[in-house]
């Protein structure tokens, strides 16, 4: 590759530095977005395992009808921490990690706009983890109010001790919020200000569009949760009465603060996964993404509508009928831009030359699960159905299809797809496929039974249930343990391939995209020379090159 940068330039020496060669680099305060991305990914995966172990304890409790594994406070702590860890320490940080790694590469930037802020935002994640883990060692155990921390349960402090599980929970959520805001400022600035010349908004990869939309939600939603959490903290510690009805407060107010953020937060998690799907389907089908512009704009539309639907979590909270009607309609509107995406993906794959590598399997599996989750989602958005199944396992089944079936499977798709880029090594395809099938079967065994359970009235967060619900619970528990085992080939694959895998070429999937034009793993500061973009992404089967100074990655003769 020709280098036009003057050799007297001091930074010039710097950006030819080699990518990190030892694991020790990942324990330093590095400013490199790629190191930070992998730090995020590995840290969040460790917490994914912790959250998974908690889930298996829950499923072990539920394999028999009586509550016999531990006392109620133990069980309450288990599901509260399972939900909290999976959301705040797995889904959010892992997606920030993959975005951190990819966004600068995809837009032709040398790094994020604020590299030090980026590192600071990452190092808050382990602090959040330590705070949450520490609450297991408190005499009264971790928070027991569920991941949504509804008052009045969350402001109860029976022992009266100043340091309690709920306090640590609130501090952890606050720190994770600060970290996310810092990340969001960084992503939005990077995407708006650091794009390579020629990369207009409508030449950005869909993944970047999705990250942008998700981070805008973070910016405008997260402060509402922060406001609610601050008020809850004061209620818990100094005796204010914002949410205490006995002293004029209103517990439903907290639900508004909470869901004004936490509903849009669902899209913070899932939009980047939609972005991952949009990157993977064209590559493994050898076809341009169907309806690029519409798919791009639909992310922003979802982000916008997401701020108008939060009350659908509160149909049963004494919300007046006219308001429930309003939010039912707005909630159902989300299915329009989402449906557009699904159809675009199906149209992309349709008639393509499909390669069923592990990333494609996970993406297709995730898409199937998402369609199912979307259908139950529309059912739940309808007031009469929701009133019937409110607080039952039907809801739990729905959001696990979203969070495991779609988000976690999409995350695995992303990890396999970009593994060669991140490590310079190939993963083991056989182990990858084993991981996929175990996961796909385990997910359905685990989460499908929750729907009939909910329809039969099994309440969420219950440690015991009626005898006639044993059948579906046993299946769900076995599926849960299978899911736990499914993770083992993945861990083994990732570690052994990274250490001893065969060397990966720069572009093993013959994909179009700036990240595939640099070496694997990419050098520090990514590009010797900032590329000049001259066409839209996803030109599979077309003869236009992506950048000014490279030949087409995939000339017509290839396909």
């Amino acid at each position, binding site marked *: 590759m020709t280098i*036009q*940068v*003057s050799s007297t*330039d*001091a*930074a010039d020496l710097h950006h030819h530095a080699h990518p990190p060669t030892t694991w020790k680099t990942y324990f330093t305060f590095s400013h490199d977005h790629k190191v930070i991305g992998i730090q995020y990914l590995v840290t969040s995966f460790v917490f994914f395992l912790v959250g998974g172990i908690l889930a298996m304890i829950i499923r072990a409790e539920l394999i028999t009808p009586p509550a016999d594994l531990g006392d109620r406070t133990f069980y309450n702590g288990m599901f509260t921490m399972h939900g909290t860890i999976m959301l705040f320490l797995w889904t959010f940080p892992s997606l920030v990690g993959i975005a951190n790694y990819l966004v600068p590469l995809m837009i032709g930037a*040398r790094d994020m*706009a*604020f590299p030090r802020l980026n590192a600071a935002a990452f190092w808050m994640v382990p602090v959040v983890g330590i705070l949450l883990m520490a609450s297991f060692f408190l005499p009264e155990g971790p928070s027991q109010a569920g991941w949504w921390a509804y008052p009045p349960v969350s402001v109860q402090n029976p022992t009266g001790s100043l340091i309690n599980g709920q306090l640590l929970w609130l501090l952890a959520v606050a720190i994770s919020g600060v970290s996310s*805001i810092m990340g*969001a*400022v*960084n992503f*939005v*600035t990077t995407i*708006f*200000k*650091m794009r390579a*010349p*020629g990369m207009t908004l409508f030449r950005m990869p869909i993944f970047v569009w999705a990250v942008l939309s998700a981070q805008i939600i973070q*910016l*405008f*939603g*997260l*402060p*509402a949760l*922060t*406001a*609610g959490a*601050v*008020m809850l903290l*004061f209620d818990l510690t*100094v*005796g*204010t*009465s*914002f949410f205490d009805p006995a*002293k*004029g*407060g*209103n517990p439903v*107010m907290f639900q508004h*603060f909470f869901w*004004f953020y936490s509903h849009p937060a669902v899209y913070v998690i899932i939009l980047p996964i939609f972005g991952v799907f949009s990157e993977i389907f064209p590559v493994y089908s050898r076809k341009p993404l169907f309806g690029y512009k519409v798919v791009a704009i639909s992310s922003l539309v979802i982000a916008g509508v997401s701020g108008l639907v939060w009350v659908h979590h509160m149909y049963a909270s004494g919300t007046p009928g006219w308001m429930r009607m309003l939010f039912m309609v707005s909630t159902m509107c989300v299915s329009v831009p989402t449906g557009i995406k699904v159809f675009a993906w199906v149209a992309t794959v349709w008639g393509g030359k499909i390669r069923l590598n592990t990333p494609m399997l996970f993406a297709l599996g995730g898409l199937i699960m998402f369609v199912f989750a979307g259908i139950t989602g529309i059912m739940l958005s309808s007031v009469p159905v929701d009133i019937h199944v409110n607080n039952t396992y039907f809801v739990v089944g729905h959001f696990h299809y979203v969070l495991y079936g779609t988000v976690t499977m999409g995350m695995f798709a992303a990890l396999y797809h970009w593994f060669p880029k991140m490590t310079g090594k190939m993963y083991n395809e056989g182990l990858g496929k084993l991981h996929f099938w175990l996961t796909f079967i385990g997910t359905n065994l685990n989460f499908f039974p929750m729907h009939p359970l909910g329809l039969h009235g099994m309440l969420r967060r219950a440690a015991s249930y009626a005898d006639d619900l044993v059948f579906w619970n046993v299946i769900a528990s076995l599926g849960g343990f299978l899911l736990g085992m499914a993770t083992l080939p993945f861990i083994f694959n990732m570690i052994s391939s990274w250490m001893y895998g065969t060397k990966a070429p720069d572009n093993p999937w013959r994909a179009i995209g700036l990240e595939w034009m640099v070496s694997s793993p990419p050098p520090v500061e990514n590009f010797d*020379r*900032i590329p*000049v973009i*001259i066409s839209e992404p996803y030109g599979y089967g077309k003869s236009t090159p992506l950048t*000014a100074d490279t030949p087409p990655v995939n000339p017509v003769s290839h396909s």
Partner: protein
Amino acid sequence: MDSSINSHQLPNHTAEHTHDEEANSMFGFVVFLLSESIIFLSFFAGYIVYKTMTPLTEWLPTGVAGLEVKEPAINTVVLVSSSFVIYFAERCLHKNNLMGFRAFLLTTMAMGSYFLYGQAVEWSNLAFGFTSGVYGGMFYLLTGFHGLHVFTGILLQLIMLLRSFIPGNYDTGHFGINATSLFWHFVDVIWIVLFVLIYVWQ
């Protein structure tokens, strides 16, 4: 079209980086302030909902008739005028008039401190506390959170003042003072809304 793109190509990327950094920082700071304003909006929304949903007889803590408006009004005038003073400080710096910059910045800091002092006096004379029902909680939460921002603004101004004594410090860029000034305007605008909500709309 091609030639215009090529003119963007970077013969020396470090030069481009320093140029970008100032613009990026300002962009990032504006994005941060937008996000910050949502916290205030959330508190305001909470205040409005609590006030409109609570019967008037139960809204104020027992024995409290309402808030004194006169002193806070004077305080408001001082704080809002300080926004103009810091604008003059900023202009002085852009014209390389360091002495004028320091004088105007010190004046801004004095006005901000006067505001905090006035609020402290008001707090110490009030007949209700943080735990006096939702009203007390919202009052101290809003004024306290805003006061924390005023304090942060004064700290930022102090840092900018000290930086002006390092020779050549302001030659390379004015992001620091531009951001400080913007933050101060932001704090003032928030106060105007807060003043109307709490003191005018009783």
